[in-house]
């Protein structure tokens, strides 16, 4: 299991990374592994504005559909079009080519409040049954 140190995490298993003045967002390795094979990803329209904690899309695995939530408030400036044809990219490279959206944050300070990799790892360990 990989816990990328260069990103911050949400309890709902998304990650967020600062890239210049945008925030890139995806789902964690832990999340893709729990979901299993991903067969469809539904993403928002570019230009849509959403608040932190709002659902911006759905990641569907063989087993189930899971909502994915905004790590920070802001405008969707780019979506990962690759996922339409190859949703399995999220399984293969969750922190890289499997990213979901890029956000132009309206409240940049919200990013600082997200979990560190170490805190997220501890959090996921608490979820094991």
């Amino acid at each position: 299991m990989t816990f990328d140190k260069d990103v911050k995490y949400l309890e709902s298993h998304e990650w967020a990374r600062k890239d210049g003045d945008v925030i890139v967002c995806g789902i964690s390795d832990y999340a893709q592994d729990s979901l299993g094979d991903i067969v469809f990803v539904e993403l928002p329209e570019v230009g849509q504005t959403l608040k932190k904690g709002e659902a911006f899309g759905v990641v569907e695995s063989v087993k189930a559909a899971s909502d994915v939530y905004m790590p920070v408030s802001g405008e969707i400036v780019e979506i990962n079009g690759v996922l339409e044809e190859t949703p399995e990219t999220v399984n293969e490279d969750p922190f890289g080519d499997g990213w979901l959206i890029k956000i132009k944050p309206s409240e940049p300070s919200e990013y600082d409040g997200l979990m560190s990799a170490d805190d997220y790892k501890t959090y996921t360990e608490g979820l094991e049954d």
Partner: protein
Amino acid sequence: METPLKHTPLRAWHVEHGAKMVPFAGWEMPIQYAGGALQEHRLVRTSAGIFDISHMGQLELRGSDAPAFLDYLVTSSMSTLEEGNSRYGVICDTDGGVLDDLFVYRLPDKWWIVVNAANTESDYQWFRRHAAEYEVEIVNVSDGTAMFAVQGPAAIEIMDDVSGGRISAIPRFGAADCSIVGVHCLVGRTGYTGEDGVELFLSTAEARIVWEAILDSEVARRADLSPIGLAARDSLRFEPGFPLYGHEISREVTPVEARLTWACDFDSNFIGRDAILARKEAGPAQRLCTFTLTERGVPRQDCEVFADSDGRKIGTVVTGMFAPSAEVYAGNAFVEPAYSKVGAEFEVDIRGKRKAAVVVKRPLYKPAYK
């Protein structure tokens, strides 16, 4: 209080081999192993996979009235079944509602009936209730019986390798006793995947020895034979159009709605026959169809189906998924008969979004042995 989940004799093996275990029909079962359900599905279509399906129920029937008894309880004629052969059938209530579907094997000394895990006890009680008027004895042997399936284009060669070449001589739907590493097994050339292969029945005490012997055989290693979980079992059965209890069949439908009248022998006076014939005559209000989405999305059980013209609700999805071999987002739905014909268009509501769908020819995947 919750009833504890039952375990198959291979539970420890599954956990040791990276299975994700989930509750299913009162059992703790592997839903998938480390490689994932899609990989497992493709392996069965291209080579071979092995399934622990010991949750399935088995009933043993003996007695001089057994053929007549089965003809009364099961929709398809079992009295015409030849020794060493097997046949699919459905059991219905007097109103035609489906209680379960099953496979019956006619063996030299008994009849071997395989039923769904969730219905094993209720089926057994149903059989027992009707047995009083017949010279028959019915025993539920599920607890002591393990059941595996080995399925895929390489399955027969693998099974020949572990049985001294006995399996390839068994015809499709045939059944025979075999010895695998010295363990007595009943082997049927049957399955639930659309591929050639076998289903094996043996004592739970020896299940692990046989399971490991099959996986360790030289031919199996060459074929990359691997364990397959319930998720891939579902997609493998969906593509060739096999029904699953609680989805395509249930107490709420008759074989007419479920397109299973081919499994009904109306010359025989089985329970539910008159109600099914009447339903057939009158025309059902709903009928099963297979559809594919013409835009991306994953339909799921219980999604509502709407007519695209006037937005009226016309049915409900009972199975939905990404079909790995057909490479389409597809499902089965019960819809008004006018919308169940090939080429009919409707919309499926997936979490509040309407997705366009078209009814397609069944099955999505033609069984390899046909």
